[in-house]
């Protein structure tokens, strides 16, 4: 007689199944991952041995971008697809520039979120919420988000290595548009996005591997990535290969930046 309850979204905390967040941690040299995650990364690295380099370039870009934004006066950050919060977190980078910077981390991986909450339990200026980017309204309306972020003030919206796991069928452009609608003028959109432009064959194999994870890889062309910035104005140097975005020093720029296979850019909302 009792009706069956609807099963809440993403109940899967099967540690036997790899996730993007934990796989990314392993790529960055982290230890916060399970055998299934490492196995997936090993398979991917067999096809693309420099995968860890790409992850590092993405992560380094994120940190440079956050530093730039904090330097430009942004005091609140919404980091969607934040992953396992180890190895240099957004709030650490931001708070080095602005000690009062506040950060809301968002991830769909329940283990990543649980671990993040544990790590950040003592920091009143950070919070970790579990949400799906495909439901941006839930992220924006979440009481924890509202407690830390004042949407009347500029926000740094971070979507690095996230949108390339949102297939077109989930309307990634609509998602960004809906998020943009909530942002005050002076807010920034930070995007790092995998592409098949430079290494199409490798990326096809990688996409194949990603089909075994809950997060399917959907790389896009440069034009397609540019579209995410509709409504924003790209700041210098525009949409570029990850290592080329405001490198720290000429030493840090590799001779073949396109090997990073990630376009990155930062746009400001007029």
């Amino acid at each position, binding site marked *: 007689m009792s009706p069956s309850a609807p099963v809440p979204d993403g*109940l899967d*905390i099967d*540690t036997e199944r790899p996730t993007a967040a934990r796989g990314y941690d392993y790529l960055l040299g*982290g230890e916060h991952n399970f055998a299934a995650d490492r196995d997936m990364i090993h398979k991917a690295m067999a096809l693309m041995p420099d995968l860890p380099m790409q992850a590092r370039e993405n*992560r380094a870009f994120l940190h440079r971008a956050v530093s730039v934004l904090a330097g430009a006066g942004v005091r609140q950050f919404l980091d969607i697809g934040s992953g396992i919060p180890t190895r240099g977190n957004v709030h650490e980078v931001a708070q080095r520039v602005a000690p009062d910077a506040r950060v809301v981390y968002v991830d769909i991986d329940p283990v*990543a979120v649980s671990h993040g909450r544990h790590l950040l339990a003592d920091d009143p200026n950070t919070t970790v919420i579990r949400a799906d980017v495909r439901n941006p309204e839930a992220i924006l309306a979440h009481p924890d988000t509202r407690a830390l972020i004042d949407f009347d003030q500029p926000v740094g919206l971070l979507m690095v290595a996230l949108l390339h796991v949102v297939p077109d069928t989930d309307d990634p452009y609509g998602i960004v548009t809906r998020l943009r609608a909530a942002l005050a003028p002076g807010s920034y959109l930070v995007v790092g996005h995998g592409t098949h432009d430079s290494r199409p064959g490798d990326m096809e194999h990688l996409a194949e591997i990603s089909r075994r994870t809950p997060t399917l890889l959907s790389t896009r062309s440069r034009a397609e990535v540019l579209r995410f910035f509709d409504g924003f104005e790209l700041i210098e140097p525009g949409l570029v290969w990850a290592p080329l975005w405001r490198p*720290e020093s000429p030493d840090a720029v590799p001779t073949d930046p396109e090997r990073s296979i990630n376009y990155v850019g930062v746009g400001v909302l007029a």
Partner: protein
Amino acid sequence: VTPAGQRPPALASPAPTPPGLATFVHAWAAAVIGTSYVPMTRTEQVAFLDVQAHRLVRALTTESFDAAVGYHVGTALTAADFTAPEALGRTTALMHERLLTDLGLADDRSRRRLGRLIETLAEGFARAVRDRTLDAQDEMRRAALEARVRIEHALRTSEARVLHAALHDPLTGLSNRTLFADRLSDALTDPPESARIALCFVGLDRFKLINSTFGHAVGDRVLALVADRMRALADEQGCAVARLGADEFGFLATDSTCADDAMKLADRALRRLAEPMRVGGREIPLSASVGVVERPAAGTEPADVMRAADISLHWAKADGRGRCVLFDADRNADDVARYALSAAMPAGLRRDEFTLLYQPLVELSHGRLVGVEALARWHHPVRGLLGAGEFIGLAEDSGLIVALGLRLLEKACRQAVRWQACTPYPPFISVNLAVRQIRNPGLVGQVAAVLDRVGLAPERLQLEITETAVMSIDDESLATLRALGGLGVRLVIDDFGTGYANLSYLCDLPVHGLKLAAPFIDGIDDLDSERARKRRALLETMVSVGHRLGLTVTAEGVETLPQAERLRTIGCDLAQGYLFGRPMPPTGVVLP
């Protein structure tokens, strides 16, 4: 574990930087930066390596050698996230290949010390990486566990919420009919031998009026307040309460001792609802009816007792609302029988089971048969011959009276035509009309068509309508009666004097006669009792009123010769009753 120092530790004495150190640091940075992700800028990373290089140099050159420095540097590397195996491999290789050369040290002591430092650095690095990995794995297991707990909790909460929503009314928060039925079912499953249960179904009277008068927002507020009162009462009485329908609430008491208990509970519910209720600044008039069932729990079926409570509530409403009615099995049996009869009527009409009996109407002055009243009967296939009183009311309720009445009218008229062929003094035919028939706008046309079809002159047909029916006549049905009169048909008021009608209608209606109900006749032939005198006076007045208005007066229920004689003396025109003949088949009527 020594905390990783990113800033140079305070030195005991400022030592001069060996000239080749910068070269070594540069080579070291080129080798290890990028081996794993380190959340520092390149400049910060170089500065960090520079600090570590200084520590190594000091260890190599100070008087008292401390091999633990290598261990601390290895630990510091991992703490700064230089955790990749390549970081260790390249570091030890570089130290081995060029540290002494870059520093310009070539002595044996330095070589021995370097060997020890490489050894302890590798130990420190490896141990720290292992500890860090084990810690991280612990953290992940705990995180996975917590995530699982959190999700299971969310699932349980969600399940509980869905279950609650399925079993409760969202407006009032009370249990809904499903949960009420569940509780009842539980109470009736293996009950103690002596247990008795009581159900009270409370229905708000004319609640739709509250909604339509004050709006649904007020209606909803009223329902919520009613629910609060019902909940409070249920709590006091220790019984369950639920919202069973839009304006219906139910109590279930599982500790009843007798019907009186249940009626008291019902009465309390009524009194709670009668207390003044204000919503949005206005007083909301509220009353309710309650249907009550009380019976032993053992052997009682949930569905039966729910139905009994529903029926009792229906009775409470039908009996005039604002009251409690206890379920009565006999009354229910009557209802059931009536319902069955009503349901069987359409088929009966199709099978032509309805017939007519005829009762003579006699002119008192000559004792001559001048008319007959047609009386409906039903040859019920199971229950035998049924009198009009047993089914006409049901036919009125169901609306079947319109079709049935027309059918019987035609039968009666055909019979009247048959009699015309048998005697030069054929009787007129008198047929009863029900309210529903008068309200039927097609009646006039139907009567005209019947008369036309069977070939009966309109003045040979008399239609009887009861005084009670007259009371409910509106402008439209008045027009119908006038049109019937216009056809030439006679209209008489049946059961005159029993309906509390305003007599002025006699001036407004196109009627031709009155029929005095049997109770007026009863007892008029008693000898000189006070009562008989009064009755005669009343009868004389009524006949006189009829005649003054130009109406013929018929007396019904005449059973004795003295009654007939008395009526004749008074001047009553026609009489009907057992004295002159019971209702009979057409062949039994003795024609003049």
